[in-house]
Structures are given as C-alpha cells and as structure tokens.
C-alpha cells in the first residue's frame, strides 16, 4: 500500500532523514520506534506532505506522492494524526469532525463516518457542541483521531497518540486504535514511545535511529527490552 | 532553505534608471531658470496642479514673446508634498543648487519657506498668506529683503471679518439676536492666527465668544460640535478650516441639523469655499453661506487670461491659484525688465519693492515693513461672497459688490 524508497529530508541545512526505505501492506499495523529527535515525526510529515522530502520516492497505492501538497495526499486516502493534534480550538467538536470530512471523496460518507467516530469515542458524542479549547488532553486526542477517521481514509498514520495522557486515558486511546484496526480492517502506521502497547498490536515494527532504519522485525519476533536496548 | 540568488541585473537596472533621471536634469546654459516649489502630491496637490499650470503658461507665453531679455525661461519645479518643513528645505536647497534666477510659488509653506530662501539673494515670491513668513521679514529686513508675499497675510481675514461681518447682517435687514460668537478653527496657523485675530477684535467690540473649538484636520462627525452650537445659540458661527472636505461636511451637517429647525445666526467661513471642491461637495447645503477670500480674480484682464487658459488647457481655471500665481510671475518679470538684468538681484529686488502692479488679484503694492501686498479695496481687496444657487455671488465690499446679501435659509 505504502512503499518508501531512499527518502532524504532536510530541516533547513540539517539532514534529518538519510535514505529511509520502508513499506506498509494493506491491513497491517506497523509500529515505528526510535529515540526522540531521530526522524520519526519528520518521516510521517514527509509522507503526508507537510514537510516535503528532498529526494526519494513515496508510493501510495502504486502512485508517486512525494512532493505533492498535503491536501492532495489527504484526498488520496491517507490520514495523518499529528502529535501536536492541531485542532481548531475555537470550534466545536462537531465542527472539527465535519472539517475532517473536507476532502471531496469523504463528503458522501460524512454520516456513516460520524456515527462510527461516536461509536468508537462515545464521550465525543456527549461533548459534540463543546469548544475544543475546553476539552481535556485525552478528549482532544480523541477528536484528533476522530477527525482523521472522518476523511474516509485507507491509511491512518498516528504520531505518539498517548503522549502526555494519564495511564487510564492511554489505555483508552490504544483500545480505540485497536478497535479501528479490527472493525474497519484499517491499515495503521503508528509512532509511539509506549513500546509495550504499540508492540502488542503491531504486525511489524521498524526502528529508526539517526534518520535511518536501523532494523525491521515481525511483531512477535521481538521483545520490548530488545527495542529499548537498541535506543542506546 | 537555500536563498534564491537575487537577480543582480534588476538592481543594476534600477540604479541605471536612477542615474539616468539624475543626468537628465543637466540643462542648457543660456536659459533663465524659474524655481517653483509646489505641493504636487499630498493633500494640497489640487492647488499645486493649478499653480504648476499657471507658471507653465506664464513661462510659455513669455518664451513665445521672445523670452525675457532675449533669454528663454525654463521652469524647474520641486514637489513639497504635504508642506513638510523637511521637504521644503530639501527642495529649496536643490533649487538653489540648480542656480535658479528666481523662486516663485503659490504656496509651499509650513512656515519655513521664507526662512529657507531668505538665506539667499535671488527674489522669492510667494502667496502663502502666512504671518509666519512675513514676520521674519519684519524682524530682519536686511537678511530677508528678497522675500515677498504677493498677497496679504491671513490675519487680514480676521481684521476684515471683524470690521465687515456685522455689517452684512444689517445689509440683509437682520438684527443680531445677541452678541455671541462661535469660533470653530483647525490647528493650522493660516486658520488659527486669523481666527485669533478675529476673536481679539470682536471681543474689543463687546462680543462674547461662546464656543471656541480647536480641531485637527479630518473631522467627519460634526454632530457634537453642532450640539454645542445649538446649546449656545450664538448669533454668528465662524468657521476657519482650510480643508474643503471638513468644511463641506460641516455645512452639510449644519444644514441637516438647523435647516428645518432653524438657527438665528449668520455662518461665515474663511477662504475655503474658494476651493472648487467645496461647492461640489456641499451642494445645496452651502446656500446662504457667507465667506471671504483675501485674493480674488477681480483685476483687469482676468477674462482674457481665463480665455487663454481655456485655449491652452481645455478646461476652466479651477482655483484662485490659477490666477494669483501669475501675478507673482509678472511682478518679477516687470522688475527684471526694468533692471535690464536677471542676476543683479539687488536691483531686481529694489524694483519689486517699488512695484505698483495691477494684476489679476488687484493692485500689488508691497508694505515696507514686511513686504506683503497691501490689503484693502484699492490694493488687494478682500471680497465677500454669499453662495446662492450653487454660485459665489459678490456681496461686498461696495466697490466690487454685484448682489445684495440675503438672509440664509436657516434663519426663520
């Protein structure tokens, strides 16, 4: 579904990604691990067009998308849920979710997707008319994920969904992601520091270090300790 | 982030075009340069345009006659924008640098042009109508002996209004209900000095100033000030503000407020209705308004001048400065011809000092104290107008009067 080859990306003059290659197959859950500041978020931003890469190829459903503007990539069915959430804070939950269905192909499915989001996150249904600036961190995270689901996506890229949440909320978020994967057979690429949780649900994992893929494993072949060790 | 390489050729092109404009200013030698600092951009540009046209026409006509003392004239202008002191100085320095034989302007003033050109020897003729520019001449006649104001200063408005305003009411057969006067003036020396002179003189006559409002240019809502007038019920409302839009808004809002309800008062304005936009903007609201101008196209030869202007520019002269600027030019030409030379500044200046010149604005005779054109019916008369049917009708002084003043519509 997604095939990345020899991706190089820069932040100003600083090279952040050095020849990254990876692939994601339909229906898979892929976890991307690695120490902070080693290029995981940059990779996701490069894929979704927020920070276009300098060299290399990104093929999504067999089509080259490297260098396309973000909105065209979203229209092809790729959703990115940023770590910073980037919600529209002065709008209600419902308005945020509706804006998630902004891409043309998502408009016909608004009703179905909205019901599904409320099915996954019943709490959002209660808070639908509340301004996003008044939500708790966990609820805001739910809106961000829900907004991604609204875009009628076929690949969901989630950047550190559990960061800054209480332990209980973390579990709820991971459960929701698992549920989305199971019920919709959604392909998911997740970046996470909570190795244990992410590993449990992944088919394969990649470990990134210094802007490169250090190794790739099947989910069941690797232990948490091994990954942690690789960080150093 | 790799910065784009700047297109060096573009920059060079700008530099070249700059230097081309620069070198274009070098001119021939034999011609006499007439320097003209004029407000060509900014809020006074509409007067500035008329001054420019007047001077251009004067130079062209003189050249067609074979020039001045056989030499061709060339007009060198400088834009003084919104009359900022800094600009006048820079323009002044530049005109001097170009070795002009005379400097003539309609007005170019924020109170400094007399000082700028007074530093030099060639004659400077202006119609700024500002005490700021004549008082320096009075204080230092030797240094500023080359500065002439070919019109009376603004205080003449105050003197004239204090002497004649109350007569106008009597001519209309109107009896003033009280001795209260409202003064609305803008913070600009041309207006403030005139208004203050007026206040001083009328107080001496036993009148009382009940509203004394200073504004800045650009008042849009006159409502609160009109309310003050309503409360005070003065017999005279006097308005001193050079900006035609301020004045037009004032009259429009005045007639809205008092048109039906009535106010037993005469309304007087200093000069501003002479700016053609005023009548266009104020429209019927200006009916019955009294106003004066200390320079007017009332001299002999005005009609002929107007025809020549129309022939040249295909439009009528639009402001008083289309006429009066020509007087400044002609005074200088006469003085030069009499002296027989241009650069003999002392002689030329002496001739100007002794001028008795019947021009488009009246007879110019300079005062000996501060070298401004004498004010009065036999010299440069202040003319009283009243607006009726969208026209400025001359209602005074007697020598020039064409119509009888009538009661304005808001007096019931």
């Amino acid at each position, binding site marked *: 579904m997604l095939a990345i080859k020899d991706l190089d990306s820069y932040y100003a003059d600083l090279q952040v990604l050095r020849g990254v290659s990876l692939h994601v197959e339909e229906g898979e859950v892929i976890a991307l691990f690695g120490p902070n500041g080693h290029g995981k978020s940059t990779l996701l931003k490069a894929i979704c067009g927020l920070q276009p890469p300098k060299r290399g190829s990104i093929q999504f459903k067999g089509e080259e998308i490297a260098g396309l503007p973000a909105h065209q990539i979203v229209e092809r069915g790729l959703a990115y849920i940023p770590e910073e959430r980037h919600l529209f804070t002065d709008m209600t939950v419902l308005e945020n979710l509706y804006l998630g269905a902004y891409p043309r192909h998502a408009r016909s499915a608004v009703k179905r997707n909205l019901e599904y989001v409320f099915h996954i996150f019943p709490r959002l249904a209660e808070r639908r008319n509340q301004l996003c600036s008044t939500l708790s961190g966990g609820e805001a995270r739910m809106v961000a994920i829900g907004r991604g689901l609204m875009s009628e996506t076929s690949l969901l890229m989630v950047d550190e969904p559990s960061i800054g949440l209480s332990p209980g909320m973390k579990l709820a978020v991971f459960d929701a992601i698992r549920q989305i994967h199971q019920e919709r057979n959604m392909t998911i690429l997740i970046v996470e520091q909570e190795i244990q949780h992410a590993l449990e649900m992944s088919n394969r994992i990649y470990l990134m270090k210094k802007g490169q893929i250090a190794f790739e494993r099947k989910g069941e072949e690797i232990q948490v300790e091994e990954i942690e060790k690789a960080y150093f | 982030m790799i*910065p784009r390489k700047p297109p060096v050729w573009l920059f060079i092109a700008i530099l070249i075009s*700059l230097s081309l*404009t620069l070198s274009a200013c070098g001119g021939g030698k034999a011609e006499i340069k007439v320097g003209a600092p004029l407000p060509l951009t900014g809020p006074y540009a509409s007067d500035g345009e008329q001054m420019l046209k007047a001077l251009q026409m004067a130079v062209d006509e003189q050249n067609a006659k074979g020039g001045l003392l056989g030499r061709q004239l060339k007009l060198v202008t400088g834009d003084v924008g919104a*009359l*900022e002191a800094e600009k006048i100085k*820079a323009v002044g320095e530049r005109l001097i*640098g170009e070795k002009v034989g005379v400097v003539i302007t309609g007005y170019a003033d924020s109170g400094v042009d007399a000082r700028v050109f007074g530093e030099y020897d060639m004659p400077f003729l202006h119609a700024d109508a500002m005490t700021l520019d004549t008082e320096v001449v009075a204080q230092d006649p030797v240094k500023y002996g080359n500065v002439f104001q070919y019109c009376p200063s603004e205080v003449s408005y105050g003197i004239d209004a204090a002497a004649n305003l109350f007569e106008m009411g009597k001519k209309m057969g109107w009896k003033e209900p009280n001795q209260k006067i409202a003064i609305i003036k803008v913070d600009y020396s041309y207006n403030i000095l005139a208004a203050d002179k007026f206040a001083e003189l009328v107080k001496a006559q036993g009148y009382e100033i009940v509203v004394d409002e200073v504004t800045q240019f650009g008042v849009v809502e006159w409502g609160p000030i009109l309310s003050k007038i309503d409360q005070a019920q003065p017999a005279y409302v006097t308005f001193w503000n050079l900006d035609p839009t301020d004045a037009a808004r004032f009259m429009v809002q005045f007639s809205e407020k008092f048109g039906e309800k009535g106010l037993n008062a005469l309304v007087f304005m200093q000069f501003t209705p002479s700016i053609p936009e005023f009548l266009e903007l104020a429209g019927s609201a200006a009916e019955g308004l009294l106003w004066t101008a200390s320079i007017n196209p009332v001299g002999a030869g005005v009609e002929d001048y107007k025809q020549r202007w129309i022939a040249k520019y295909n439009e009528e002269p639009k402001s008083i400065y289309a006429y009066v600027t020509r007087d400044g030019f002609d005074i200088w030409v006469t003085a030069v011809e009499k002296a027989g030379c241009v650069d003999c500044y002392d002689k030329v200046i002496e001739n100007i000092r002794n001028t008795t010149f019947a021009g488009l604005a009246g007879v110019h005779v300079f005062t000996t104290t501060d070298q401004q054109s004498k004010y009065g019916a036999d010299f440069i008369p202040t003319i009283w107008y009243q607006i009726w049917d969208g026209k400025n009708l001359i209602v005074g002084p007697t020598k020039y009067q064409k119509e009888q003043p009538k009661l304005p519509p808001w007096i019931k």
Partner: protein
Amino acid sequence: MLKNFNWKSALYILVIAFILLYPWLGASSYNKHLFILFFIWSIVAANWNLMMGYAGINSLGNIGFMAIGGYTAGILAKSFGIPPLLTVPIAGLVTSLVVTLALGLPALRLSGIYIALLTLIFADTLPSLLTQTREITGGAMGLHEIPPFYPGMDKTGAYYICFVFFLIVLGIIYRVIHSPTGMAFVALRDSENFAYCLGVNKFRERLKVFALSSLLTGAAGGMYVHALGDISPTTLGIEPFLLTIAMIELGGVGTFFGPILGAAVIVFGNEFLRLAGTLRLTLLGALICTIILFYPGGVIQLFHSLEHQIERLLKRKPSTS
C-alpha cells in the same frame, strides 16, 4: 591587527575619509543638507532596527520618540536659552524617561503585533497633544528658528557636528550589539526558550533596549532641530514614518549596516526621485516592492553577495598568477 586589515577595512576608511573631506571637495549646500539628513535619519533607523531587528520589539512609534526629543530640545533652547550641548542629551533623557514609562512598561508586557499597534497609536496621539499645548509647542505651526549648535553656524558646521554624532551613536550601537546584552537579544530573537534557559530576563532586557533606543532616538531628534532649525507635527506624518520603516527593511533588518545603507538609499534616492515630479512616490513605492520581492534580505544582501564575489576574486588571483 594587521591580519584583520583587509579590503573591507580599507573600504570603511575610504568611506569615512570621503565623508570627512566631502565639504572640501566642492559639495554643494544641497548635498551637505542631504548628508545631514542622512546622518540623522540613519541614527533613527539604526535605533529602530535595534528594537525591531535585534530585540524583537516591533515598535512603530519611533518617529514619535524623535519628535519628543526634537520638541524637548527645541523648547529648551528657544524658550529657556539652554545651549545645544545640553539640550541634546537632555532631549535624549527626557524622551527615554517619558517613552519608557508611558509606553515601554505597558507595551513590553504585550506581544508581537500588539506592541506595533500600541506604539503606532502612541505616535498618532502626539499631534493632538501638541495642539493642546500650542502655547509652548506652537501646535500645528511647529517651532521655528530654533538656535543652531553655535551662533552663525553654516551647513558645513552642521555637517561635521552631525557626522560626529552619527559616528558616536553608531559606535554605541555597535558596542551594544556585541555586548552580553546584545547577545542576549540575539538569543531572545532566535529562541525564546533557549534564552530563558540561559537566565535571560526577557522583559528586563527588552526594557533596557527600549530605554537606550529611545534615548538615542530622542537625542537624534535634538540634533535634527538644531541642525535644521524647525520641527512641526508634519515630522510625525505618514510619509516620514513610511520612509524610515522602508530604510530599515530596505537595508536589511537585524543587521548593523542595513539601516545605514537603507537610509542612504532612501534619503538620496528620494531626493533624486524628486526629479521625476509627481511620479516620485510611485517610483519609490515600486522600488520598495521590487526590493522586498527580489531581495528579501535588503540591500545588504546584495552587498554580501558582492563581497563573496570580491573575496573569491581575491582568493583566486594568487593561484592563477
């Protein structure tokens, strides 16, 4: 020391020598006048740049500071007969005190564009204050015949006095930029968090710049009135404001030489453009737009690229010959 002596130092010395000798090389009064304007405006621009480009205070009111200084010096000299040697520093101090207390303290608690707007409104309030105090300030008439630096001063005298002032103030600004305080500004500008970690007190550092910049701008206002003899509210008008902003941006924000170069371009360019008559401001506007679109770093950027080319040439020569 000798090692540091390169073609650039030679250029600086040449330029300074030229300015020193210029009145003896047959400069017209007009050109001297332009240079005086250039000296004063480049000081105003350089101080503005110190606030905007270094300390990140987006002030739009610096013309107002200059006017306060100018009026203070003018009134002191005219009404109280105090010699210019004293009025100029007093003007600076008064400006600094008034502006820092009435504007700096509140404004610096705000951020970004709010500072810009508050300072802009501050400057726009001044003309009506001048009108209210017209017995002393002359209102819209302004102050005229303000005594020169010394009796009987001519353009050449004013030229040299302003040039000395220009060098002194630029020296101060240079020192400030390269002092620990200056470094703190640069740290603040580049990363607020990082500077915070270094223990930089943003408010205090900014207030210092504010005080210093208004002091020097006020003094420049004092120089202005003594050199030129007049000041009026038109000095606070929209055009001087636009032109000074243009100087900074045109020259290059946040660089030492930028505002000076910008002042040179605007002061001399604007006067030369006067020859274009009514098209002057049209051309000036077009010039500003063009430079921003194509030279976002300002004129200084162009000089830097020239510098690189010259340096390349200088380096290449020994190897080829």
